[in-house]
């Protein structure tokens, strides 16, 4: 029973801290923390699936989160007029040609006998394929990017409801994860960590540079949202009346209302994913996963297909991260590839899982909330601390200015310290796996 009390107490503590933020700072900040906390919790669940259940070391979370964001643009944005006829189809053909080259190379290598002929065939297919691909791709991209470059210059999306983008984000991430898993897990012994680290960087590089896709570093702003706009609410008299009835000014009330809407949507998603993860953990499939994790050799001897099971869970976990990424981009209302950084989107999620408790879904959720709360709140706390430290220093002193300016970087330091403290004194996390 004490386990349950402990879990309840920890969750209570986190939500009390968020509530305290609401009372002391503002409810806007509190709801912001809550919303991003919900998204972080989902990401942590995804990583926990991979690391906690199966022991897969995925340090490319950032890539899958970004893919989720990309899916939002591709699903919900309006198609750019003329882009498809200008070059869109040619881009698709070029990409197919590129994929065909790779498939052809693999097939040649499988079919032909080892020898000089095979090497020559491989190389010639690669070279011809590459130039074919570039030959179709480059002019097509140029044509697409020439369309209204100040605002568009991309293909746009399918103009579907934005809520559909969330599962689409999961699907996109799953697809890419399948490709990575197929290559990395299929080798003699896996080297997933370095593969995912690299793939994440490549995904970000593609999103930054392929302007035809989602405008690259020029960013996509004003994405669709599944909740009403603040400005519309403020112009609705019934809403304004009700807000005034509660003693709130319409501006604050509308922004709170929007955030609350998001909170509810996110909570629904989190609950669905959490329940599914719990069911998976308790199902025969989950037991087999853990059996493989605890003794791969024995599991293999019993005829379990370890590589395929690993591939499954890798794809599933990445899909969850993709969904969370799509939700995050929807919440932000914009896609900014330049802001994706591994420390924030990969390693911070890892801190959440480790601190919460690897292998325990509740732990991952707790870690998501707790670490996100600290990530946000350490900055004002650091600022306050620095102001306390520098209170005796003369006004205008260089050191004082430097210390106060640097307070923002306290959060990285704090995350490291928290991770190390938990690893040392509670290595199984705050809510350990049973």
């Amino acid at each position, binding site marked *: 029973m004490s386990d349950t009390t402990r879990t309840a107490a920890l969750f209570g503590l986190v939500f009390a801290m968020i509530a305290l933020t609401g009372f002391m700072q503002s409810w806007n900040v509190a709801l912001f923390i809550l919303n991003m906390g919900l998204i972080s919790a989902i990401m942590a669940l995804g990583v926990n699936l991979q690391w906690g259940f199966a022991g897969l070391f995925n340090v490319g979370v950032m890539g899958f989160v970004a893919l989720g964001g990309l899916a939002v643009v591709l699903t919900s944005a309006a198609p750019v007029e003329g882009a498809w006829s200008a070059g869109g189809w040619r881009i698709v053909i070029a990409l197919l040609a590129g994929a065909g080259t790779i498939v052809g190379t693999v097939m040649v290598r499988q079919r032909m006998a080892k020898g000089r002929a095979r090497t020559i065939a491989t190389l010639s297919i690669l070279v011809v394929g590459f130039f074919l691909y570039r030959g179709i791709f480059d002019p097509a991209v140029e044509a697409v990017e020439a369309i209204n470059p100040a605002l568009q210059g991309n293909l746009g999306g399918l103009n579907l409801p934005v809520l559909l983008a969330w599962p689409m984000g999961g699907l996109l991430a799953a697809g890419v994860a399948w490709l990575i898993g197929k290559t990395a897990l299929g080798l003699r012994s896996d080297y997933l*960590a*370095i593969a995912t680290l*690299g793939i994440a960087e*490549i995904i970000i590089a593609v999103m930054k540079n392929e302007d035809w896709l989602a405008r690259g570093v020029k960013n996509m702003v004003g994405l669709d949202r599944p909740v009403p706009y603040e400005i519309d609410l403020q112009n609705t008299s019934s809403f304004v009346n009700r807000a005034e009835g509660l003693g709130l000014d319409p501006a604050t009330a509308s922004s709170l209302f929007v955030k609350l809407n998001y909170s509810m949507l996110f909570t629904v998603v989190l609950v669905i994913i959490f329940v599914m993860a719990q069911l998976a953990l308790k199902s025969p499939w989950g037991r087999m996963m853990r059996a493989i994790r605890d003794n791969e050799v024995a599991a293999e001897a019993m005829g379990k297909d370890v590589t395929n099971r690993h591939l499954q869970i890798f794809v599933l976990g990445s899909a969850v991260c993709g969904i969370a990424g799509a939700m995050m981009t929807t919440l932000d209302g914009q896609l900014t590839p330049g802001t994706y950084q591994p*420390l924030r989107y990969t390693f911070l999620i890892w801190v959440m899982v480790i601190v919460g408790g690897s292998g325990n879904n509740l732990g991952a959720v707790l870690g998501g909330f707790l670490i996100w709360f600290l990530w946000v709140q350490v900055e004002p706390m650091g600022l306050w601390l620095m102001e306390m430290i520098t209170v005796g220093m003369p006004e205008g002193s260089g050191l004082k200015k430097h210390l106060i*300016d640097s307070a923002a970087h306290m*959060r990285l330091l704090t995350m490291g310290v928290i991770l190390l403290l938990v690893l*040392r004194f509670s290595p199984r996390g705050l809510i350990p796996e049973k």
Partner: protein
Amino acid sequence: MDLFNALVALSNFVIIPAIAYGSQLALGALGVTLIYGILRFSNFAHGDTMAFGAMLAVLITWLLQSMGVSFGPLPTALLALPFAILGTMALVLLTDRVVYRFYREQKAKPVILVIVSMGVMFIMNGLVRFIIGPNDQRFSDGERFIISVREFKALTGLKEGLAIKTTQGITVVVAIICVALLFWFLNRTRTGKSMRAYSDNEDLALLSGINPERVVMYTWLIVAALATTAGVLYGLDKSFKPFVYFQLLLPIFASAIVGGLGSPLGAIAGGFVIAFSEVTITYAWKKVLKYAMPESLEPSSLVQLLSTDYKFAVSFVILIVVLLFKPTGLFKGKSV
């Protein structure tokens, strides 16, 4: 004559930058591979150790410059380097004492140490940003070129110029000295041999009376020296920016793995393989081909295989290809 011009352009834009970059990667990869071989985990904090070392060098350089000390035509940073190395050594030894040693005593599994190194990475990253801030810092001074484009053109009468930056020259010279020292140490000295023995077979090393704590200490000291040197050379050659060092982690790991993890020789080879592939694949070859090809075949486009932004993709693809065909890396390291 045109062929000479092509050759000069090739050296100027591909060979020389790749050699310099390769040396920097090799020094970084050596540090990673030593930790992997002796402490038996991949150190995610290595990039940030490099950043910390380079930051110390920047600060000390500024101090020296403010005192009016200079190193003639060479960058002042070279004078600061030994002090920076000492500072980094102190930091990593402290880290080992406070953080890693506990897990050694617990006989923690390597993966746990990797996660621990993530924590250290956060702390070091925060520390560097806290002290010097996240922005670009320039700290190179002294003569900018060993030979500049104009001098070269005047000297040879060629249309194409060749420039060798002082930092490039220094990078190569310092890297060669470091590597020579390291190999002499590992292969000729008692302590170096004991490090190799410990990496090869820890239990037997213990039974031979090798003190593991000493081996670990020497490893950290060497890693600190290598990381700081690599960091300073990279910073001199490009510029100092904390986040860039973090991103170097990928090509550095790729170098170490391509060469064969745990093999120092492999780390060096891997560094150059990665650097040359990155530079050749992201270089716009038009300039070279213009000279090498007859007029009629002269390329109209830039002849750039991939945009520079995809250099990560290059190291990554090389990594996959090597692992597909030679899973132990080019030099037989520990099997991956």
